Each structure stands twice: as C-alpha cells, then as structure tokens.
C-alpha cells in the first residue's frame, strides 16, 4: 500500500493535524496553497498557518468525514454528523466557507434547510436560529397579506 503523503496543517491555536494529502486537497483553499508551494517533494509538510480558531474542530470533522468512503455508511454517517446544535453548525459553516470545502458546505446547508422545513411556522424558525424580528407591525401585516396568495 502506498504511503500517501501527509500534510501537516496548523490551526490558529497551534495544533497540528496530520492529514493525508488527498484529503487535505478537498479543501480548495489548501489545494490552491499547496499547488503554489509546489510541495510534492515533501513528505511531511508544514503548510501554513490556518488562522481560524474553529479550524481545529473542523479539521477533525473533515478528516473523519473523508475517511468514510463507503456510500451507505456515508449517508448514515453524514446525517448523524450534522445533527449538531446551532453553534456547532455555525462553526462548521465558517470552516467550510473559509476552507472552501464544497461537500461540507452542502451538507451543512442541507441541514439548515431541513431545520427550516421542520419548523411549523415563522416564529419557531426565529427562535431556533435566534433571528431578531425587526419588522414594524404594519410591515409584517403587509407582508402577510402579500404572501397570502401562497396559501389560499
């Protein structure tokens, strides 16, 4: 079995993760950086500072995500993986956004979408996500009337 090259990623709080290069490349950001540095020669490579405090947790998740290659397991695992609370979801979002990992972002987006779908009405959605209702009462009334066509 070929030894895949490992890249070492350092996160903001100075923790170093060793990940297989093929996994690290899932992140577009790292991929671009790696290409630029022309790091193929290095086995252990210390790439760069990844200045995201959340990257620490995220990198763990990411690694685990990519370790499961089998499809059936993957969909099960993914649904469990994303059953986290709002704060964690938020961190995943930030990390996925920053590191440009498409599959992770899709997963989180889908999860948020499922959350919204599951909420019975607008008030519940607001409570779940902590959205502040900054409509004036009249505006709200107008919008409700404008959108009543959807339900009639």
């Amino acid at each position, binding site marked *: 079995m070929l030894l895949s090259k490992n890249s070492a990623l350092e996160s903001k709080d100075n923790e170093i993760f060793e990940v297989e290069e093929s996994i690290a490349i899932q992140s577009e950001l790292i991929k671009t950086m790696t290409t630029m540095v022309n790091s193929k020669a290095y086995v252990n490579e210390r790439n760069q500072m990844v200045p995201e405090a959340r990257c620490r947790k995220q990198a763990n998740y990411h690694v685990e995500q990519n370790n499961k290659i089998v499809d059936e397991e993957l969909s099960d695992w993914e649904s469990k993986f994303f059953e986290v609370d709002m704060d964690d979801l938020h961190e995943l979002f930030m990390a996925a956004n920053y590191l440009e990992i498409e599959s992770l972002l899709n997963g989180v*987006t889908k999860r948020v979408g499922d959350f919204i779908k599951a909420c019975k009405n607008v008030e519940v959605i607001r409570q779940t996500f*902590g959205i502040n209702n*900054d409509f004036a009462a009249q505006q709200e009334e107008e919008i409700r009337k404008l959108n009543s*066509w*959807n339900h009639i």
Partner: protein
Amino acid sequence: MEKKVGRKKIKQEKQRHDPDDDNNPRNTSSSRYSDTSGLKDYVFHQIIPSFMYIWKHDQEKSYKHVDVPKSSAKNNMDPNDFISHLPDDILHHIISLLPFKSAVRTSFLSTHWKHLWKEALLDSVHDVITIEAAITAITSFVDDFDTRHRPRNKWGLIFELGHGRGSLVASISSNSSLKLDFSAGKQEFPMPFDLFLKMNIAPPNRLSRRYMFDWLLEENHPSQSEQPPSNTMRVKSLHLISVSHLSNMAVSSLVPKLPFLRSLTIAKCNGLQSLQIKEAKGLRKLVVLDCPHLQSLSFEGSSLKSFRYRGNLVSFRFRGKCNCFPLIRFCECGLLLDDAMIDIRQGALTQWTWDFEIETPFSRGLRKGNHCDCANKYKCFNSILRSIKDVQSLTMCRWFYETTMCKKLPFSSRCPKYYLSVLELWWIDCSMERESINALLCFLKLCPNLKRLNITLDPKCYNLPSTGKFSTSVIVPDKLDDLKVVKIEGFANEEKENFMARRLIPLFGENNPVIISKPNGKCLKHLVKMAKLEKKGKYPYKFEMVENVDENFPDHVHINI
C-alpha cells in the same frame, strides 16, 4: 492593498428595492469577522505574499466561495443569529432547498430575509422593457413550466422594466397559482383606469353527466381541441397585485390565455375605477381586496362559489348566466355562494347597489320576486339575504346590515322568510353599544345553524349612528344549538368584554359557554365560571388568561386574508 485579490465577491452592494427598509441597512457581515479578517491579512502579507499575485479564481467552480466582508455599517441583527450573517449566496442555496411554500415564508423572518426568496427562486430578466413583452415572456414561462421535471429550482421571473415603470414579479406557486405583482414600481399618482377581463375558461369535463347537454348549445371552444401535455402547469388561480393604468391592458390580454382558471384575486390596485369580468364560466372564486378607488364591480359567470371583498361598498352587479339546456331544472349554475366576505368597514360610496341576480329563469322554480315593497330593491336587505342564503362562511358588517334593514321586513313577531345556512360568521363593528349588540342578536336570529362566531371591533370601521331599528325586536336572543365558540377581539377594556359576554351567554343555552377574548396582541383569555363567585351570589363569569392556546377553535376563514 486589497487582500482578497481574485476571490469572487458576491453582490453585496446590490440594491434591493424596498423603500420601507431605508432605515435598516442590510449587511450580511458582523463584527465577528473583523478579527479573523485582520489576522488573515497579517498572515497573507507576512508569510505568503507571493500567493497574492498568482491565486487564480476558477470560474467554473460550481461552489462559489464567497467573501465574507468586514462589518462596516451598523445592522439590526442579533449577534447570536448566525444564519442571517451568512453570505447571500449561501442563504440562496438554503432557500432553494426548501419547498416553495417554506421558501416564501422565509420572507417573514426579518427585514434581511424579506427579499431573499425572490433572489433565490426567481429568474431575473433584464432585457425586457415593456409590460407587454413581459406578459408574453410570462405566458411562455407558464407554458413551459413542467411540474415534474424542472431543471433548476426557478419558480418565476422578475422583470426590471425601465423608465420608471418599476418591476414586475411573476411567480408560480406549487398549488398552481400565478401571481403578478406590480407593486415594486413607484406609482405616485395613480391614474384611474378600468379593468376589463374577459375570461376564456375551458368548459368542464364534457363527459360528466350533469353537463351532458352543454355541448348542444355551446359553440366550439377553441381551446378544447388542444389539451396541454399533462406535465405542464395549469394555472388555476391568478393573483394580480397592484395593477395600474400602465399594466391593465397587458393584464387583460393575459387572462384569456389561462383557460383553467378557477380563482381570481385582485388586490391593492390604486386607480382601479371599475372592474368588469365577463364570461367567467368556470371561475369559482373571486377576491377583490383593498382597491381604494373602485366604484363598480360587475361579474358575469355561472359557477361562482366564493366572493371575498374588502373595501368600500360600491356598485355590485352580479349575474349568473346559465347555459344549460332549458329542461334541466336542477343545474348548478347561478351564483350560489357558499363563501362570502363582505368586509366593507371602510364605508360606502354615495352611489352603491347590491344587484345580485343569482337565479336564472329556468332553474330552481319560481322563487323570485321581491317580497319587500321598499323603494330601492337593490339596497334592501331582502335581496342581500337572498344572495347570501346558502353561504356557510360569512363576513358581515353591522352598519351594512342596519342600513339595509327595511322596517317592513318581518321580524321577531313572525318567522323570517329565509334562514341563512351560515356556519361561521365574522361580525365587524366599530363598537359594541347596546344597540349594536341588539343588531347582532337580531342577525343571529337568522342563523340557526351557526357554529362559530367571531366578533371584531375595529375603531376605524365606519360608524353608522344607531337607527333604533332593533331596540324593540330583541329582548331575549334565541338559543343557538350548534354554537361552539365565540371569539371576541378589539374590546377596549374588561368591562366592555364582560358586558358583551353577558349578552352572549344566553346564546349557548344549556351548553357550556366558550368565549375567547383577544384584547390586543397575542394572549387569549377564556371565559371561566368561577364557583366561588357563584357561591357568593355574584356574577360567576370572568375572563382569565389561558396558558395554552386552544387549538380546537380555529379562526374564521376570512380573518387572515
């Protein structure tokens, strides 16, 4: 130096047309990002400066990394609310994953979300500048709208019409309704116009037995021969919002192209003076709301079941055309409404009529003729009564009832000629003085089957000074056997609520009176019988705040329109 060279920027500066939100600048960023951006800056400048020049952005990437901007302007978003801070592209993605109804509902969440669904789900069209061309584009969009295989999650079009004509938002909902919203345009001085809609509705299924004789008399309808393929959208309801003098011609040209229309809604059309709807054979539902300059409404159709109106009392003229073979005695033609909302709390125009001819000469025997001798049969309650005879969900304003009540109509001493089939009633008044309560109780005598009663007091409602018509006729109201609940809303204080409750309790007869009050805002109070008060000999009923909203008593169907 710009630190994000090459990164794709999203359209953060895009103007959203929303004059309401001028005071709430929307910004998808928050201060949370400022420190990380700064650090990134440091990193990139110190450690990887060379990358700045050679980072290329891959245009074909399906995933768009979006630039999370630094916070600059103030915003009204809760710092704990992370989802609204997400970049717009991601929010669009989330919205596009939702079913259509949920997606439209997100516009209620906050001012930031108000227009996101439109950006996510509607195609923006920029090269169309006339309304007529827009209508043509909409028609072809509808024709091509394949309900099962839609390649992209696009549910409509937004047209930016130039020359100050604003924008037109056309969206299709999953329940086959097409909405044309012209309201984003700036219309300072609404010019008066008349809307003339000639429907072209396909006749009902010709194989159904009751219409067997239809085809003998009916001319060849051009749309019958071409049935659209089954996957395409059949627009069943059309909603027209804020039609103006600029768009009325285009709109009238659209209507004949919707042969499967069952419901028509016209709302908020400033400047609309007269509305004429002809040949609306299959139209089941007509809703006209909030058209402040409307003076007359004329409808000619044969299967109208629901009519909902909010605005001034204008000249109504409804004709039920029956095309059935003359020998059929029991056809279903005619305007047999089962849902009527007559919310005319804004008052009446000087010239108004209520001209409902619901029966055709051939059907339903010979029960016609005016029983009342009053001078103007179009303003007499008798004719109104006949037109709402079979209505099950009714909204009525007290002043309308009182003003049309003719003294000659038999009441109290004799049985009324007609009973209404009303099951749920929404009664609107401006205040509940003794006389007004008498009027309500008098009306309730006509509603023996009533199950749910909603009473709303709106101080802005037109106030007809009491005419004293009802003072002698009602002392004790009849018991309503089926009455389950009465909901009252808008009463000024508890004393008035209690007064009302006292008069309403006899309606329940033997049953437990259920009266729910909604003074203002969202808390509900139930009428409770206090045993200890009863023991003391005092009036035992009181309104108490209730923790759980009782789901068994839904609101009247017209209340949230």
